[in-house]
């Protein structure tokens, strides 16, 4: 749902390709570095003109999703928010995020971020054991900050274009690349093979509702502070994805199909 982009995982990664001995890793890192620096070089940051050719269909699906969210998920999640103390909600979120860490480690590896991959594995080890099944995050106190990556980010680093904006039923904002990556990521995540499909689905639903219980106020104020909520979500989701792909290192770069219009140039309309 729209709240997914509110799941904030600050992943400011400093990429140090010089210090790595492996050639493949170095090559991949160099590729990434080029990607980042070329984004830097082309910044002035441009206004994202997001490709949305099936906007009417997307809008209809968005209205459907938003209806289910407002009259189904949100009331249930608010009930949970009312019952559960804040530390319980946070611990649950930690635990669900911990389950996603091995997948993130694999994606770090696929992007040539060896060091971050190691950090994610170490985080998983520490938080699963000392952190009691990931309920707590002692790893952060040992200086192991999360470097969360997903397969959509991996594909972006490999140079795969994102394609037009898509609104998926129930799953929310997406793109062809993102949809494909969601499938891969669900294979990368550990629980269906270990726990079986039913338990995995249950865990995911609980994770989903717990997330909404932590973010429904933000979603509400986002809705209130926008004139066209559909456009707001489309724009915000795209910008947020781009920032994550670039690890926050460069200004959010426009998607591939953007005309060079400087967002901050007001010389034409003083």
């Amino acid at each position, binding site marked *: 749902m729209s709240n997914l*982009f509110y799941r*904030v995982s*600050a992943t*400011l990664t400093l990429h140090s390709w010089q210090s790595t001995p492996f050639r493949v890793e170095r090559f991949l890192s160099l590729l990434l570095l080029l990607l980042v620096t070329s984004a830097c070089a082309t*910044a*002035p*940051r441009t*206004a*994202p003109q*997001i490709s949305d050719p099936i906007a009417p269909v997307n809008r209809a699906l968005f209205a459907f999703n938003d209806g289910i969210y407002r009259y189904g998920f949100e009331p249930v999640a608010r009930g949970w928010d009312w019952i559960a103390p*804040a530390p319980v*909600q*946070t611990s649950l979120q930690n635990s669900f995020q911990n389950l996603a860490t091995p997948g993130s480690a694999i994606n770090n590896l696929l992007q040539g971020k060896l060091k971050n991959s190691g950090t994610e594995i170490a985080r998983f080890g520490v938080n699963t054991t000392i952190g009691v099944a990931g309920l707590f*995050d002692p790893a*952060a106190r040992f200086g192991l900050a999360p470097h969360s990556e997903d397969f959509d980010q991996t594909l972006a680093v490999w140079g795969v274009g994102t394609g037009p904006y898509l609104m998926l039923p129930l799953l929310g904002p997406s793109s062809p690349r993102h949809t494909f990556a969601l499938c891969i990521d669900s294979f990368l995540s550990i629980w269906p093979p270990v726990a079986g499909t039913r338990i995995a689905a249950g865990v995911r639903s609980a994770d989903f509702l717990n997330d909404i219980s*932590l973010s429904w*106020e933000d979603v509400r*104020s986002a809705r*209130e*502070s*926008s*004139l*066209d909520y559909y*456009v*707001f979500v*489309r*724009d*915000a989701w795209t*910008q*947020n994805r*781009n*920032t*994550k792909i670039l690890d*926050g290192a460069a*200004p*959010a770069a426009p998607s591939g199909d953007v005309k060079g*219009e*400087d*967002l*901050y*140039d*007001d010389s*034409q*309309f*003083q």
Partner: protein
Amino acid sequence: MMTRNSNKEPRIHSTFSMRIDFPPTENTIPALQKCPRNEMDSGFLKLLFAAGLFFFVAFLPVHVFAANNPGARETVQTIVDETVSILKSKLPLHEKRSKISAIADSRFDFDTMGRLTLAKNWSRFSTSEQADFLRSFRTFLGDAYGTKFDQYQDETVQVLGERSETRGDITVQTTLLRNGGEKIAIDYRLRTHEANWRIIDVTIEGVSLVSSYRSQFQEILENGTPQELLRQIRDKNAQEKP
């Protein structure tokens, strides 16, 4: 509240504390001490001194300027400190709101923000419509974001660093630490306005406020008139506030 006080004085201190002997002697310029006196004619020394004096004078105004006008980073730090101290005070809610609103008016460049959100549509607005838009947009932002401060729960803000941008702008990067330990990246883009740094955009987790409203206004103006956009903003402003 984590504060990182930037040390403004030490940067210029070394320049000012330099003792100037006139005329220069071997003591003043260590490199000259090894040279036999007869090889150094006074003309060369004078030239050297003149060059030194030139650089001193040339850079003097810059230092004085820097000392009087806080940089972008200092500006953001000041805003954060002022706002947090108001939020932590025991003032009634409406007084907190009006004080924060006053800070926003002095530190944000709402006119530039408004123009940037309209972008190429700006010229479609008549002069009175433009003024009307800037006024309503300011009210709109105040209503939308001013009320968020009511939910303040001892969050802390850390100023991390800054980055130079096009047009002489500077982006100051900060992190908001929420109670649950959640970190939110908030970037402020600043531009100089009459020698003062003022905020022209706020980017939260990569989502820029200017870009976000630009897209929404563009969508409305694609098929609608400026009056239609103004009406929608006015309607939003007239809605009941929490």
